[in-house]
């Protein structure tokens, strides 16, 4: 990851400030080791002082819950406060044998796969169109990106209404062109796709922006050289634009995968995991087991299994991007 590379560079520069050593040199000729050591320990105090506010919140609201959650997953703790004793890995064993858990994991993966593809391709198409030099740039940016600023509840309200089997716009439009109506949110075979469509509308704007920025960074000379060679617009797109966008694409895909694995909001709001549990993602299963089913300990175990999955994907992401930027 380029980020770690940067930090290594900056560490080399973060030593005693050049100005100060000049100051010391002018006074004494040679740097005083005692002075430098006290400077170092003052730096240490300063450094940690600056870090303390952040660390306070970090330790209390992130590290502690993370560790306590792990502890909870080893108990049978209930929402009512009962069953507080340690039961070892029983929760994990039960989770791995839990058909519902695997089902929800499968739903999440299914959603990730079928949503990532359109979320990348449609964004690419949008960026390509806008990048071709259209008038009224603000209009395109507004139309494609504005949905990204909406809360999930708003998106769910909009789409639940449009998906209404009798009164919804979508079924009505389908009927007008002679196609059969679809029970968007009530048909197990279709519900996930309905959610994918809503998610696409909601979040494609973000990928669109990233692609647009990357495209506008491609030096014009490449295209000029290509047209001199006689290459048309399509050829240029496939031979120049797409390859130049490869690193952006990789990054977008990985970001998208990570975001899709965490999905909860719009599914919970539009189908509550139904029909028949066909859309229930793993995050919702965690929520249900813990808060609706009262089993906080068990729910914590599932969340740690989920965490393991996220870590695995993130590690893969790290390895891929590191190899690319090496």
């Amino acid at each position: 990851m380029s980020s770690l590379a940067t930090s290594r560079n900056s560490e080399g520069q973060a030593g005693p400030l050049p100005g100060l050593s000049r100051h010391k040199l002018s006074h004494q000729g040679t740097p005083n080791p005692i002075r430098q050591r006290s400077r170092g320990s003052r730096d240490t105090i300063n450094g940690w002082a600056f870090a303390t506010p952040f660390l306070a919140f970090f330790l209390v609201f992130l590290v502690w819950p993370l560790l306590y959650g792990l502890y909870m997953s080893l108990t049978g703790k209930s929402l009512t406060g009962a069953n507080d004793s340690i039961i070892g890995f029983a929760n994990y064993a039960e989770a791995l044998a839990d058909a519902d858990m695997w089902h929800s994991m499968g739903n999440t993966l299914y959603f990730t796969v079928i949503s990532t593809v359109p979320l990348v391709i449609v964004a690419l198409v949008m960026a390509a169109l806008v990048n071709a030099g259209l008038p009224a740039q603000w209009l395109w940016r507004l139309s494609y990106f504005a949905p990204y600023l909406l809360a999930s509840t708003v998106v769910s309200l909009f789409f639940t209404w449009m998906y209404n089997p009798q009164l919804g716009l979508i079924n009505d439009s389908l009927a007008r062109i002679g196609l059969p109506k679809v029970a968007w949110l009530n048909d197990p075979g279709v519900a996930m796709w309905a959610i994918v469509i809503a998610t696409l509308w909601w979040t494609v704007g973000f990928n669109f922006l990233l692609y647009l920025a990357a495209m506008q960074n491609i030096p014009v000379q490449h295209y000029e050289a290509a047209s001199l060679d006689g290459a048309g617009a399509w050829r240029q797109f496939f031979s120049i634009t797409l390859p130049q966008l490869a690193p952006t694409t990789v990054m977008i895909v990985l970001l998208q995968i990570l975001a899709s694995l965490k999905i909860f909001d719009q599914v919970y709001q539009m189908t509550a995991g139904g029909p028949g549990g066909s859309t229930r993602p793993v995050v919702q299963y965690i929520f249900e087991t813990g808060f609706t089913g009262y089993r906080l300990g068990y729910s914590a175990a599932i969340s740690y299994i989920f965490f393991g999955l996220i870590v695995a994907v993130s590690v893969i992401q790290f390895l891929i991007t590191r190899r690319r930027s090496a």
Partner: protein
Amino acid sequence: MATQTLTRPVSSSLDSAPPRKSGARMTPGRVAVLAAAALLAVLWLVPFAWATATAFKSETDAAAPKISWIPSSGFTADAFIKVFQDGNIPLWTWNSLYTSAAITVITLAISALVAYALSRIDFRGKKVLMTVIIASIIIPPPVLIIPLFYQMVALHMIDTSWAIILPQVIHPAMVFVLKKFFDQIPRELEEAAVMDGASRMRIFLQVILPLSRPILAAVAIFVFIGAWNNFLWPFIATNDGSVLTLPVGLQTIKSAYGIQYAQNMASALLAALPLILLFLFFQRQIIKGVATTGLAGT
């Protein structure tokens, strides 16, 4: 090539339209592109348009079996009036506003402080701290909701604004974004202050921060939008009506009103309004802010 694309500031490339390629006439190709873009734009605006059309109908018209854009009894603002009178949208909007503002301010403050230390101060344990912060970027919220809920219960903070605000000020990715920016500020600019014997804090406040306005704005925008639209944690941390934020409050409307489509859409539009308005006025800044910070990982 790869690093070049990623580290050049995104802001400059999104500033204006790309240079026109050679041959700026409206060729058939160009017309096709315009048509395709327009089609997509129309598709993307339909949900808003349909919600607006519904919100301005009477309930009878909204639930009429024959669906049309123009209602038979004309447009009316009844739904909006009812929503304002009966509902809690103004209260929830206010709750969202001050919690998001508090989250943004606190996040900026604590993140900038630690980012500065990581960028400029050589202190013992710095590498460890840096690694820990970066590693924590991976942690997904769902892993924390169960123990955090329990923690809030133990601290008797459920149903308070603090429960919403405090866990959300931790943005390790933003620390990293700020640090990267600070790294790029030339050291010479601090030297005058350093030679005066200024304290670290003075340098931070009087030299670094003023130079960092763009990135601070970008981070602020990103954090504010994220806090405003956050659903999962506020949903879990609050039950009582008076502290609900907009997304969570809106969720309760869905079922409480039963089948009142026009009012549902009116509520949704009112909830969408603040950020959309903000976007209309600050389009450029918001886009740059989101794109710049978003690269560091959501």
